[in-house]
């Protein structure tokens, strides 16, 4: 191993593997797991676990909470080297030539300032506001100063989409992409794009930490990830959180002046968000279960197929995927193709790519595709939008998949509900409210 592998990172090594460190200097070490009276404490993820849950038959202990990052046990030591910011100087890192709108520019300037002053900032921007581009100026400033930066998202799909865009915008900055499904080895780099879980492996590494979709599961209500965010930042650093649907607790922090908020109610192309159409059909699920297409739904799908626009069909639960797709396949036979996608689907990335290539015209999906995924000209249908598994913020996100490209700023968002419920009505209201704010801004 090289010194670099330890910069700002917690590297677990077995006590018997310490010979790996022979050429490495100034390394700081801590026990991976501390054994207390009734619990064990993990020094990687900072979580406590009752002994009974964590014991091995040889009387050693492991941490079950961060086990998805590779199991660490009482036989491990964590090694780290203080982040030295050892990067090649680059005074002109931005290789992106695009332009920002007035409102985007205002936000962008604000973030540059936040970055300089090492503050915390919440950017509340509608879906499709061009959040990534708004970050470019601040990223460029940070790179110029030799700062180390991380962009973390709870979703792998978002990371996979961000990575090539960032590579394009900062061609000479070394970027690594880290998430659980990829096999590339870790390498020291000035910019890290990763899933939020990967932050657990870092220690006081970043001068600027950006968290996308800060409201999204699994970041919400997860003390391990909240702890990881704090541990991965340097004591003096900036934290920028992005959201389209802020949670109450975030807004509370804003009110308590714990952080500043920037507001971007307009999409980058200046057009309004598509407003969902709520359709009540109490028997939609029964129809599908019988293997039949509901008439109204069929009409909508026919229109989309005729217009040759791609579409997502969202369902609340994995168990509906199969039933619904079987009816879909029968219904669209000979006209287009599609498939199902869910979170544990090993071919998920591949399927999304196939949709991009035009091999599929539709995907039947769980909420896993509610965020971050962008398709030009997309329409969405939510089956059972009144199901409690669709929160109003996830419905806003889903609606936000539509009308994102400047060529196709419009599109259909259809919520099929058994009953009119609060989550559906709230989502529609929130979108209308954002549109009203956006209209004011344009005038």
């Amino acid at each position, binding site marked *: 191993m090289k010194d670099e592998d330890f910069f700002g990172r917690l590297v677990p090594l077995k006590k018997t593997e310490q010979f790996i460190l022979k050429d490495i200097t100034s390394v700081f070490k801590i026990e991976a797991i501390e054994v207390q009276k009734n619990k064990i404490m993990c020094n990687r993820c900072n979580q406590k676990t009752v002994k009974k*849950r*964590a*014991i*091995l*038959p*040889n009387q*050693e202990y*492991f941490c*079950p909470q961060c*086990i*998805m990052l590779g*199991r660490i*046990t009482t*036989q491990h030591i964590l090694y780290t080297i203080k982040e030295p910011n050892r990067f090649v100087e680059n005074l002109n890192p931005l290789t992106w030539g695009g332009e920002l709108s007035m409102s985007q520019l205002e936000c962008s300037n604000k973030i540059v300032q936040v970055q300089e002053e090492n503050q915390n900032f919440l950017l509340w921007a509608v879906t499709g506001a061009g959040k990534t581009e708004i970050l470019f100026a601040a990223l460029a400033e940070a790179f110029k100063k030799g700062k180390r930066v991380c962009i973390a998202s709870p979703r792998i799909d978002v990371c996979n989409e961000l990575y090539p865009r960032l590579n394009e915008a900062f061609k000479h900055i070394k970027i690594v992409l880290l998430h659980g499904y990829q096999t590339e080895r870790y390498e020291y780099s000035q910019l890290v794009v990763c899933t939020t879980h990967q932050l657990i492996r870092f220690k006081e590494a970043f001068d600027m930490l950006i968290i996308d979709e800060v409201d999204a599961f699994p970041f919400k209500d997860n003390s391990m990830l909240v702890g990881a965010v704090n541990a991965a930042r340097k004591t003096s650093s900036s934290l920028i959180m992005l959201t389209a649907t802020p949670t109450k607790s975030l807004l509370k922090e804003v009110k308590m002046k714990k952080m500043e908020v920037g507001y971007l109610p307009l999409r980058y192309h200046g057009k309004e968000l598509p407003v969902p159409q709520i359709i009540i059909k109490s028997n939609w699920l029964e129809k599908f279960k019988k293997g039949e297409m509901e008439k109204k739904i069929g009409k909508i799908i026919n229109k989309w197929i005729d217009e040759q626009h791609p579409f997502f069909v969202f369902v609340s639960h*994995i*168990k509906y995927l199969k039933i619904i797709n079987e009816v879909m396949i029968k219904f669209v036979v000979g006209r287009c193709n599609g498939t199902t996608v869910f979170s*544990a689907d090993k071919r998920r990335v591949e399927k999304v790519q196939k949709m991009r290539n035009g091999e599929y015209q539709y995907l039947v999906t769980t909420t896993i595709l509610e965020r971050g995924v962008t398709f030009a000209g997309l329409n969405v249908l939510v089956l059972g939008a009144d199901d409690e598994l669709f929160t109003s913020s996830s419905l806003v996100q889903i609606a936000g998949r539509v009308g994102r490209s400047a060529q196709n700023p419009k599109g259909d968002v259809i919520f099929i509900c058994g009953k009119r419920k609060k989550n559906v009505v709230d989502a529609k209201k929130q979108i209308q409210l954002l549109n009203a704010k956006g209209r004011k801004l344009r005038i």
Partner: protein
Amino acid sequence: MKSCLICQGIINDNFEIEWILSLQPRKIKLICQDCQGGFRALSGKIKCEGCSRVLEMSGFCNDCKKWIKKYNGKLLKNTALYEYNEKMKDYFQKFKFLGDYYFLNVFNQELRKFVQKEYGSNWLYVPIPISIKSYQERMFNQVEGLFSGVNFTRALIVQSEEKKQQSKLNRNERLRRKQPFKLNSQYEEIVKDKNILLLDDIYTTGRTLYFAAEVLKNAGVKKIETITLAR
């Protein structure tokens, strides 16, 4: 609110009328209903009389027919409690490969009770061993974990350290392997003329269990049957 060991989803742990009527102590749920439903129990299914693989018609599966030929009609009787499907694969991924030892509790009680009820005290229970290398890495033998509470007779040991992890071999490589086990010499006398139940986690090709049985037969064991969690 508890979360499911396997999928981290919420476990619905309400009191059920069946439990109240059953007068049984309350079982603590470790996994959610969806994950539970993902495991396919084999009891009551039509399956191979040799290895418990699910079949459309009763009889022997093609693999077992080959074993009958190879071992002159001496087929091992294997009982498997569950089908090896995607859910089971997921389970073993977390238990065996990620190394979350606590996962043994998902099936331990069921396996232990089954063994004690169906076999009882006239049998010796021999777990399939793992190599020293695997043990150092994993720090547990998953078979002994799954069946913990059963009185083990550790009569087998891995003889060559080359034993590559089976899961990394393909089917043909598995079948071409050399005898990986030998008798633990301390047990030479103990196993003679005994009934032995071999314990394993997954029955895939049967190769492992037939090798183990061969060693024990040569040591003069009277009768051998096998049990696995999954087939």
